[in-house]
């Protein structure tokens, strides 16, 4: 083999029998029984892959599942069939279902959250008439900016989740949350948005009645807004916010119902983390916030861990030692031994991390380590391998 040719990655352990797919362990239990699993975590820890794998595991076990994702890599989006920004959940294609060995009644749908699309849909659903919704769509502020509204992403996630759950189409929804430094932002941001867009505020900007003081105050506010944005746009913005605020009052009801559901026994929150200091700090912060918010935090997934089951045994070592070696191989092996030391140090660290996560998770929680898989295989293989790790003993 030429020295610079890429080394073929190890095949993923897919040849094992189907019994390997039985749902075991604490995550297997959740995948079997919950109605919603929320995967939280910082960006870059493999949250989307974990979410898709959990959904896959449930579908293989015969459940009707939807994975709701935010920002998958292009490859994963293609694997799930959502690369073209579909307007509704998309079932996995028949050949992919076959490749993933999902059989009826098991089903796996995927959907990409698009704030604009969900906002449009909410406007249509909640406005009384077609003219009314068309009028809203033609508002310049809405056209340009509805997706840039602070908290909009999070809001639409909750809104979509609620509707999909009450539709009864799915037995389980796995939610991949938007990446954020504060893993629970997606729960808190919609509430913030809703309170900020309180309809009264916009009445204050355009008062029809009220005392001298109210009108004087609103005049100052209007003046400020006009000076800052120009008269025409200030008017359009206030109109937009006013209408949107009314819509949000309806959506707020959904939000409240959803919050209640998320605190209930059918929901489970998992924190996906990587074995780095920063991810860990975030993980612990998440856990305490989840407890404060009375959310059913179930456990940690330690992703990209260097801990492996396929240990190098003494027997392997003996066989290896018995093998004749050339001088050049010996010098290579000495360098390999140095690399092994680095690997061992990482494994030791990851084991410490896992122990600490287990300790923090407490008796009723868990921490599950998932090894880093080579990324060269197909994404479906990666999802299957990850699903097996997650739902293994």
């Amino acid at each position: 083999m030429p020295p610079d040719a890429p080394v073929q990655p190890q095949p993923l352990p897919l040849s094992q029998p189907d019994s390997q797919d039985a749902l075991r362990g604490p995550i297997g239990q959740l995948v079997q029984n919950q109605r919603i699993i929320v995967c939280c975590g910082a960006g870059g820890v493999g949250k989307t892959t974990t979410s898709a794998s959990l959904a896959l595991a449930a579908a293989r076990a015969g459940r009707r599942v939807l994975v709701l994702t935010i920002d998958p890599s292009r490859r994963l989006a293609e694997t799930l069939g959502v690369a073209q920004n579909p307007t509704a959940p998309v079932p996995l294609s028949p050949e992919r279902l076959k490749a993933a060995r999902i059989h009826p009644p098991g089903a796996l749908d995927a959907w990409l959250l698009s704030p604009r699309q969900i906002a449009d849909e909410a406007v249509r659903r909640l406005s009384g008439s077609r003219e009314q919704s068309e009028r809203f769509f033609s508002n310049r502020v809405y056209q340009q900016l509805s997706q840039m509204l602070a908290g909009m992403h999070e809001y639409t996630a909750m809104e979509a989740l609620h509707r999909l759950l009450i539709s009864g189409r799915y037995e389980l929804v796995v939610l991949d949350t938007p990446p954020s430094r504060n893993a629970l932002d997606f729960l808190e941001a919609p509430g913030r948005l809703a309170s900020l867009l309180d309809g009264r505020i916009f009445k204050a900007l355009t008062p029809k009645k009220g005392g001298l003081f109210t009108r004087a105050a609103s005049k100052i506010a209007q003046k400020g807004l006009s000076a800052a944005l120009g008269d025409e746009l200030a008017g359009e913005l206030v109109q937009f916010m006013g209408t949107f605020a009314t819509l949000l009052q309806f959506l707020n009801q959904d939000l409240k119902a959803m919050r209640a559901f998320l605190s209930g026994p059918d929901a489970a929150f998992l924190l996906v983390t990587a074995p780095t200091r920063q991810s860990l700090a975030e993980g612990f912060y998440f856990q305490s916030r989840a407890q404060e918010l009375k959310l059913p935090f179930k456990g940690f997934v330690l992703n990209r861990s260097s801990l492996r089951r396929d240990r190098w045994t003494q027997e392997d070592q003996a066989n290896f030692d018995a093998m004749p070696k050339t001088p050049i191989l010996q010098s290579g092996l000495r360098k390999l031994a140095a690399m092994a030391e680095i690997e061992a140090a990482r494994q030791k660290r990851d084991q410490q991390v896992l122990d600490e996560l287990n300790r923090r998770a407490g008796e009723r929680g868990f921490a599950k380590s998932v090894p880093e898989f080579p990324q060269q295989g197909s994404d479906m293989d990666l999802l299957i391998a990850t699903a097996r790790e997650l739902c293994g003993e």
Partner: protein
Amino acid sequence: MDKTTLDALLNRRVWLVTGKGGVGRTAISAAAALFAARRHKRVLLTEIGDPAERLSPLARVFGRDLLPEGEPAPIAEGVLGVQLLALTGQENYLNSVMPSKMLARAVLASEALRRLAAAGPSLRELGIFHQLLTLLRQTRCDGTLTHELIIADMPATGHTLSLTALPERLLKLFRSGPIHDNLVEGQSYLNDPDKAAAIIATLPETLPVSECMELCEGLRTTNVPLGAVFVNRVPLDPFSPEERQALAPILDAYPHLPGATRFRRHPQSLAELDRLKRHLGEVPLVALPEIADDKPDSAPFEAERALVESLSRHLDNAFAA
């Protein structure tokens, strides 16, 4: 690496450091600030703040919980720091357009407007944009620039694109007036390859490289010039070609031999680096080596600081080469 290209990079006014989570973007931003300060640049290191935030990983590198608020203040030798806050920018802006300070204060006291400013579409981004513009404009008494190089650690990819796409998007709404003028001035910085550079941080791995390529495309649509790609954690390869050749069949026979994972990683990393280089063409690629965390028991902040110091030394080498 072409030295003139990199030196030109140092002469730009603003670096927007971006990249997916987990690639070490924050450490790279901090290292770049230390490095530029050693090159006698007046550096301002900044990130988008959030009033609800209590801890910033970037600030932790400099032993603080958060970067300074409002006015830039020193955080390291030759480096000032400040948070980009929507509210700060919005206040600056209102002060600049209102006919009197008193009126501006009265407007800011309006509860309705404050809430609108916090949640209104794009008003947050506008505030941040305005603060960045104010910092870019600032000069000292002698007329020289207060902040020669502003390094912004940009959060997730989506945020970067929504900020860099902001001027074009909003110019459709503001056809004249002070915001229009500000946006045009901002564009004159952000879209000028002599003044601004997007710096993408990534890793020599399949997924991060693919994502980096996608981000390059995204930046192209917003007309922010791509300055360089910094590839973090490039593994060192101690093996000679002969040793590799001798080891390869052994590791095929004994795939679990300790050290095998790392042995395999190197050629994969090189292949990914190659793929990225081909995609980038003229755009400089700066490879930063993997730095062993040799103080596993030290306080997290000290270890992070040591990593950043070490990365900044590697930048010295990359730029001097």
